[in-house]
């Protein structure tokens, strides 16, 4: 992993988040640079999804600030792409892989207009980037879970985002799809985009991410991967859910 070279694209400034009156995440602090990948790690219910939604401007920041691409989350939304978990989608929906990826272009196409030649080209390239170009005309639901996740990533890539947010994209995904996902993310980073990915997979974090944010309703740590994924900090993040196996390695329960 190289040193971060890009400008700060996402900055958390002691941000605390709330749904209505209930505070759900406290004091997140750190920044993400262009070209970097940051893993968001913590037990279920820690607030990872909430944090991602806050970056999108969909959750109230009750103290501190979140700065996205130098601006507020709502204003920056145009250049931020979100990849949801694939099992939130209806597999029976009569839409093709190509149509799903094209959806990534809709916002830029704008209201009242139809996607043009350039939009379709971008969509095709994005599908190519995740290695599924030959499945373009198949119904979305006929693909495997991992392949569908890749299609959702392609949809995000088609947006040409500067910041990419992924909500547990590696859950239950086969090895081939995992490789494809990582390769596509790598390419995006090389082009200067920043990636924030929530995951339970520590090995993947070690492999693919420059920094890690450990979260359990409040920030436990935010720093370079090696330094942050220590047994002590992981135990602090996962509470009693961490199991110590050997002196310097920890197995973490979901």
């Amino acid at each position, binding site marked *: 992993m190289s040193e971060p070279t890009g400008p700060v694209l996402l900055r958390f400034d002691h941000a605390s988040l709330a749904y209505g009156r209930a505070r759900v995440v406290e004091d997140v602090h750190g920044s993400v640079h262009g070209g970097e990948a940051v893993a968001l790690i913590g037990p279920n219910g820690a607030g990872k999804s909430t944090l991602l939604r806050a970056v999108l401007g969909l959750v109230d920041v009750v103290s501190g600030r979140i700065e996205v691409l130098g601006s507020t989350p709502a204003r920056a939304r145009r250049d931020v792409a979100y990849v949801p978990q694939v099992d939130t989608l209806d597999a029976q929906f009569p839409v093709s892989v190509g149509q799903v990826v094209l959806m990534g272009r*809709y916002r830029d196409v704008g209201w009242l207009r139809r996607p043009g030649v350039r939009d379709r080209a971008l969509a095709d390239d994005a599908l190519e980037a995740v290695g599924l170009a030959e499945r373009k005309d198949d*119904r979305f639901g006929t693909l495997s879970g991992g392949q569908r996740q890749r299609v*959702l990533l392609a949809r995000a890539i088609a947006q040409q985002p500067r910041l990419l947010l992924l909500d547990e994209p590696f859950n239950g995904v086969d090895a081939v799809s995992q490789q494809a996902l990582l390769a596509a993310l790598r390419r995006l980073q090389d082009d200067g985009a920043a990636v924030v990915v929530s995951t339970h997979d520590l090995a993947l974090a070690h492999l693919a991410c420059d920094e890690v944010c450990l979260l359990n309703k409040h920030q436990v740590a935010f720093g370079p991967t090696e330094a942050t994924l220590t047994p002590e900090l992981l135990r602090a993040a996962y509470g009693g859910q961490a199991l110590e196996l050997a002196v310097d390695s920890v197995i973490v329960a979901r």
Partner: protein
Amino acid sequence: MRYLLEPFGSPFMQRALAEALLLGAVAAVVSVFVVLRRLSFVADVLTHTVFPGVVIGFVVAGTSGIVWGASVFAVLSTVLITVLAGRSRVTEDASMAIVLTGFFAVGVVLVSRQTSFTSDLTAFLFGRILTVDRQQLVVTAVIGAAVLLLLGLLGKELLFRAFDPAGAEARGYRVLALDLVLNLVVALVVVAAVRAVGTVLVIALLVVPGAAGRLLSDRLAGITLIAVGTALLAGWLGLVASWQASVNHGLRLASGATVVLVLVLLYGVAAAIATARKVRA
């Protein structure tokens, strides 16, 4: 073939056919969305909440007032329903059911004050497609055009929202606003349908064509084509059946209801075809 064309020699049957085809086509397109978004219950609620508007329009301004009364209530109830449904992540079935019955009861109370109560009630609930006049055809055409225009302009956003509401929200689309538009479209179809098939039977037009299409196709274009085709066929055959029965056999088959029955039969055919395909595969 002559059997199928014979009924349409007189102007009144031609008008009835035009109404059935226009209404059927528009409702069929909307029904694709209703089925994909699982809005059948919401559509049913809307058919009941538009009803008091029909009665009030009729009481205030006679037959030509129906459209206006219905339209006002269509807008009002759309807003109410959308807000209710948007309040929580899951649709509030109970509060919608209360709205449905409350509005409907208001409508029945109002119409029962008329001396021509039973006749008016059956006309509003089940339509009088045989006495549709040119003005009503124009109303249907205008509403139909508005509906298709809305769906055409907002189609891709409605599709995105239908498929991935979280993703649409993340992209900055106001999901509640999009839902409002679609619910309004459904309510407008109810307004257009009152004179022809009535508020009770219109739910069939708003659900069955799309459902039949979904059975037979996996692509949006295919589903829509089949839905429209089914609705058009049902309109045609239903009117033929009720005319032939009445004129040649002295058998009374209420025309609007017969169209709906044929539509359901066609759905049965679609289901049979779909099952046969699955068995063969």
